[in-house]
């Protein structure tokens, strides 16, 4: 009996600990006088109109999409090509190379490499370039993407490819028409994972995109805090919600479709 009540209390406390901070995201966007803190809202949709009228809010969401599409496309396409080649070619030291890449990506984090990356982009005159920032983000994601994609491609039976070869298909055709369809769950995983990572990345765009016209939602949302000395509490809650929805939606989609799995520390 005592054990049962300790269990119930523990679960209730844990649930409150995790849920209470999130309730703000459900109440403040719809409150006529939103503040930092939780209260039952005085319902209104005015905040949404004000947010849509904000000069940079919608533009920054478009910037986020541009940045994410560049980073995700580059990661997925180059990652798949590399994973396919590494899966099918027997070269000495291949596994060592894969582990080395994975090691690199966990050691050279955005934080540890912010100085050289900033200096490099600064000297190349690529500060404020969305495409360059997208490439930098892709470079950090590629090792993990290759590692996971190779796992998926390894599981495609070689006999499929051999029969396609017999009928005269080129390696590119084999990749496009035989391997890709079979490895689709893996590619979808990487696609979603890369998009979510790039969408949430704050540090690199914050360092490399200094012009508000180029900044993605992550950076704009942060600068709303310091705008004119005090936080813009009308726009922040609505914009936080708008910015968070795609991430949550993508996760729900993936976990419904492919089941929530994770590979060596990668959220997918």
């Amino acid at each position, binding site marked *: 009996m005592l054990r049962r009540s300790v269990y119930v209390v523990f679960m209730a406390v844990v649930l409150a600990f995790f849920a209470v*901070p999130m309730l703000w995201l459900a109440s403040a966007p719809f409150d006529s006088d939103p503040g930092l803190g939780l209260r039952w809202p005085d319902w209104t949709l005015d905040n949404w109109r004000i947010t849509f009228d904000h000069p940079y809010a919608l533009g920054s969401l478009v910037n986020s999409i541009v940045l994410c599409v560049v980073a995700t496309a580059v990661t997925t396409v180059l990652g798949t090509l590399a994973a396919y080649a*590494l899966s*099918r070619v027997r070269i000495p030291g291949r596994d060592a190379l894969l582990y080395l890449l994975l090691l690199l990506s966990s050691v*050279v984090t955005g934080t*540890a490499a912010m100085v050289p990356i900033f200096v490099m982009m600064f000297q190349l005159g690529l500060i404020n370039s969305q495409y360059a920032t997208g*490439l930098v983000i892709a470079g950090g994601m*590629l090792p993990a993407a290759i590692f996971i994609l190779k796992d998926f491609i390894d599981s495609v039976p070689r006999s499929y490819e051999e029969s396609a070869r017999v009928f005269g298909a080129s390696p590119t055709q084999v990749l496009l028409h035989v391997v890709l369809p079979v490895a689709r769950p893996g590619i979808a995983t990487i696609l979603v994972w890369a998009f979510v990572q790039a969408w949430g990345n704050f540090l690199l765009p914050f360092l490399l995109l200094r012009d508000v016209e180029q900044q993605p939602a992550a950076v704009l949302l942060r600068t709303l805090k310091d705008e004119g000395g005090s936080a813009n509490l009308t726009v922040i809650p609505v914009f936080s919600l708008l910015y968070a929805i795609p991430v949550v939606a993508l996760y729900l989609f993936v976990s419904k479709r492919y089941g929530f799995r994770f590979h060596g520390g990668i959220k997918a």
Partner: protein
Amino acid sequence: MARAVGFVSPALLLIGLFLVFPALWTIYIGLTDYTLTGTSSIAPRFLGLSNFMNALDDALFGNALWLTLVFVIGSAVLGQNLLGFALAWLLRSARPWLRRLVEGFVLLSWILPSVVVAYLWTAVLDRDGGTLNSLLGNGSTAWLVEYPMACLIVFNTWRGTAFSMMLYSSALAAVPPSQLETARTVGASGWQTVRDVVFPHIRGHVLTNTLLISLWTANDFTPFLLTAGGPNHESETLPVFIYQKAIASGELGYSAAISFLLLIVNLVVALLYLLLLRKRS
């Protein structure tokens, strides 16, 4: 073969440009007096190891190192690890709806973007009308100002527990049910069961999990979004310290030297992780 090289090289080129080169270049920048503005920005001088010597004398660097250690031990090694295991252990036998509900919220706190999460916790901890003060009923405590490190530790436990929970859930599935059954029949308490039956099976997982979450926590930039290192450097962990030195003060050479030290620590932790991984497989 030539085609294989063609397939691999674009990816390797990007990795080389944005991971390998920066890591190596950090070493070189760290040996100079390179700055963002002024004469050293045009013609940086080669200083040798003096940036590293200066770091040893820099009380703020020591402070950042200490706070990072406190942050990693408090929120990752203890917070995420223990809460993650407790949840994985207790949710095994929970009703499906409860399990789904708890797991849903824990996962949500993990997947929300860090800028949003920072606002959520600012709203919890704010002095005027913050959720925690309203719940306590009497408070006007400025939590983030008075107890910045405690706030960061609680925050990061909330933020990262999902990973440990999932990892331990799958590890617990591999513990033979017959052994748990035996423990129950001989009347072992929950704690005894965990210590003597479960722990020997998941020891490897505990170690790899601890290494990974420590690595991520030490490199986490989210403290910048919550406290920006303040007040008065009281929550300035290493990532925030590097940012403040590099971008705010423009001391690129010095901050590169500090980054290099962080890279070395990361390398050691990651090598340990890979070693353990290979030993197990």
